[in-house]
């Protein structure tokens, strides 16, 4: 493994790890707040227990998110000093703003977690709301920085150096709005589904437990709404790509030839040697329609671009297929849930529905990892699209395999501990049942366990 590959792998591994905890930091505070707000409204103690339970999980996730994020802010320099030297003045701004979002987030999380009986209930809920807002804000700021790497603006290039820089214009780059919306929705969808899956699983074993019913309802609402909106925002991103990053789009779609009325390819394994994508199902005109909203539009294929600016086509294509498949499945589950809830006027709880929710629970996190693979690998060989190559940005330090392997082992260990601790929390989850409501025809299934 050469040093550049080791640096890329270390960055990718650190980000892939951090993003899981980061999305938890964005979305769980929202769910805690909803539960706590329901408690204040209904005085149903189950909601309070739920808020406290979720807060415990959040505390563990947040701590690991905070330390892995600290690692990332150093890694920008440890691995990519030339990138930071070049771009720090242009995109440091969103990172600086993010710093303040971290402060409010950490401060009010401290109050939320440790302040249950030190501040008034309303102040407590407000602290939670601030945590939720600042979590979303930190995600927005850091994704703005990433969007700038994809569509750099806010400077002029003279002799390879940036002049006339304008950090505000850099923050307003064309990808920023689309990417931040898509990322926020991704966080709510993924965490909502992950949490819903856990409670659905427990409900399957303990059908009348009110605690899990309340939890499932909140998590599904947060995750479901976002999952339904997600394909729409993904489509907006796709159109942005068609204009600003045609190479990435072509790689995502396995589109080698420039074509009028390009088809949408589902599946398949792009082959860079033969410049084809065999074994795919082609939907005629699909891609032109999606990317330009015009079946006759011309989609530029990879052949239009020199070989040395192609990203690894197969990885990008497959990752994109994974994200979209996961997204479609989640949206489907969400729509079914909404339909059944509307029909029954209560939380759907049939066995097969709960099983579907369990099955869908990892999909959001998978889609996030896949989506970032599309974005980051799809931008290669550039670290700043069209401006600086990843190879120019890397540190002159050698032996980078060592930190890569070390951090990988540490993160695997941390992940295992986190899973174990959360599983322990889940196993101890409370048993709360409603007053007997007369004949309950679900009782029989309950006896089943």
């Amino acid at each position, binding site marked *: 493994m050469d040093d550049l590959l080791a640096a890329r792998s270390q960055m990718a591994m650190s980000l892939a790890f951090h993003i899981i905890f980061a999305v938890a930091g964005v979305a769980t505070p929202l769910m805690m707040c909803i539960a706590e707000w329901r408690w204040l409204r209904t005085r149903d103690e189950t909601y309070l227990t739920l808020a406290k339970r979720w807060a*415990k999980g959040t*505390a*563990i996730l*947040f*701590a*690991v998110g*905070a*330390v*892995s*994020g*600290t*690692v990332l*802010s*150093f890694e*920008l*320099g*440890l691995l990519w*000093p030339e990138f*930071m*030297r070049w771009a*720090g*003045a*242009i995109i*440091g*701004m969103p*990172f*600086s*703003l*993010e*710093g*303040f979002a*971290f*402060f*409010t987030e*950490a*401060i*009010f999380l*401290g*109050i939320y*977690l*440790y*302040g249950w009986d*030190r*501040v008034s209930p309303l102040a407590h809920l407000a602290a939670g709301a601030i945590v939720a807002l600042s979590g979303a804000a930190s995600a927005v700021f850091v994704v703005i920085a990433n969007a700038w790497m994809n569509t750099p603006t806010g400077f002029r290039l003279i002799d390879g150096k940036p002049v006339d*820089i*304008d*950090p*505000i214009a850099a923050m307003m780059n064309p990808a920023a709005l689309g990417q931040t919306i898509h990322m926020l929705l991704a966080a709510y969808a993924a965490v909502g589904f992950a949490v819903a899956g856990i409670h659905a699983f427990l409900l399957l074993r303990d059908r009348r437990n009110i605690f899990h019913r309340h939890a499932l309802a909140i998590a599904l609402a947060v995750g479901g709404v976002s999952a339904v909106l997600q394909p729409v925002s993904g489509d907006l991103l796709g159109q942005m790509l068609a204009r600003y990053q045609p190479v990435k789009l072509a790689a995502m779609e396995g589109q080698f030839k420039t074509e009028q009325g390009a088809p949408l390819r589902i599946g398949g394994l792009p082959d860079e040697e033969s410049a084809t994508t065999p074994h795919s199902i082609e939907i005629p005109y699909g891609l032109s329609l999606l990317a330009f909203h015009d079946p006759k539009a011309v989609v530029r294929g990879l052949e239009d671009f020199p070989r040395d600016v192609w990203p690894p086509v197969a990885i990008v294509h497959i990752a994109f297929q994974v994200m979209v498949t996961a997204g479609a499945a989640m949206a489907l589950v969400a729509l079914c849930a909404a339909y059944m809830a509307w029909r029954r006027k209560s939380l759907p709880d049939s066995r097969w529905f709960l099983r579907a929710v369990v099955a869908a629970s990892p999909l959001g996190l998978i889609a996030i990892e896949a989506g970032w693979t599309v974005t980051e690998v799809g931008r290669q060989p550039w670290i700043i699209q069209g401006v600086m190559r990843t190879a120019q940005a890397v*540190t*002159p*330090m050698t032996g980078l395999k060592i*930190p890569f392997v*070390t*951090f990988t082992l*540490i993160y695997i260990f*941390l992940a295992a*501990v986190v899973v174990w*601790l959360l599983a*322990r*929390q889940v196993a101890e989850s409370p048993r709360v049942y409603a007053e007997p409501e007369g004949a309950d025809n679900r009782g029989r299934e309950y006896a089943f366990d």
Partner: protein
Amino acid sequence: MLSIDALISGAMMVSLTFYALLGGADFGGGVWDLFASGSRKRAQRELIAEAIGPVWEANHVWLILVVVLLFTAFPPAFAGIATALHIPLTLMLIGIVLRGSAFTFRSYDRKTDDVQRRWGRVFSITSLITPVLLGVAVGAISSGRIRGEYSDFAAAFVSPWLAPFPFAVGFFALALFAFLAAVYLTLEARDEALREDFRLRALASAAAVGVMALAVFLLAENGAPVIRHSLTWSWWTWPLQSSTAVFAVGAIYALWARKFRLARICAAAQVALILWGWGAAQYPYLIVPDVTIYNSAAPAITLRLVWWALLAGSALLFPSLYYLFRVFKRGRAT
């Protein structure tokens, strides 16, 4: 009129000071966890955990703020430091990761002794190592051994920090943090015996601070000549050093006389003055001897925006911090 470059580096110093006074004390708490002893071992550890719990995540954001300000306002300095100090910074990060996670895992894992002790050990050992590495990095930046030449591995990536001076600074930082923590803990403790435990620890670490300060000053002669020169010859140095000494003696006297609030003020002032003394001696260098705040500053527009962001951010931050500390640190001591 101060130039904007100087203002922003001043803001970085402020941020670093808060990191030392708050985050530093968290590290120090970990050190006392490691050295918990006597019949009140367990009570000492519980007090430390209780004191750190609600605030450590906020306290460590000060370090992140220093880093983002550095790479936004002085990008070449960030690139230079992160390149030459790759090894100690990576080790420090490993310490930060294991320490923060172990602390949290300990709070949420089973309460049986062996499990608690296992996480406690990771937490306390990393609390000992991490500040040393942080100090090593600071010492290396001042030493004049980072030259932006990367052809020879040892000269570029090892010798800038593997030297007596940076390590002396590292152990100085450790002593300071342990001292701060012990002083703060005298105020957190609710029972007399526990307070005495930390009073003795504070006095012992005050002695360690004195020894390390002397060692750093002596080693600076060869290890960091530029810093040593301005610490010896600048007009500000004697007023600064004598007021540092006054606070140092004041802290020891206050501990001796059991005036713990006074001790806290003196200890914090002493540590802050030591940091600002270093900052003044280092001025205008970010990396001695090649990179200054002037030759590495980002374009004016970036600096102006960062300055406004700092002002707006502070308007949000300081009231929130005040609230946090009022909720958790009010009315502890007598």
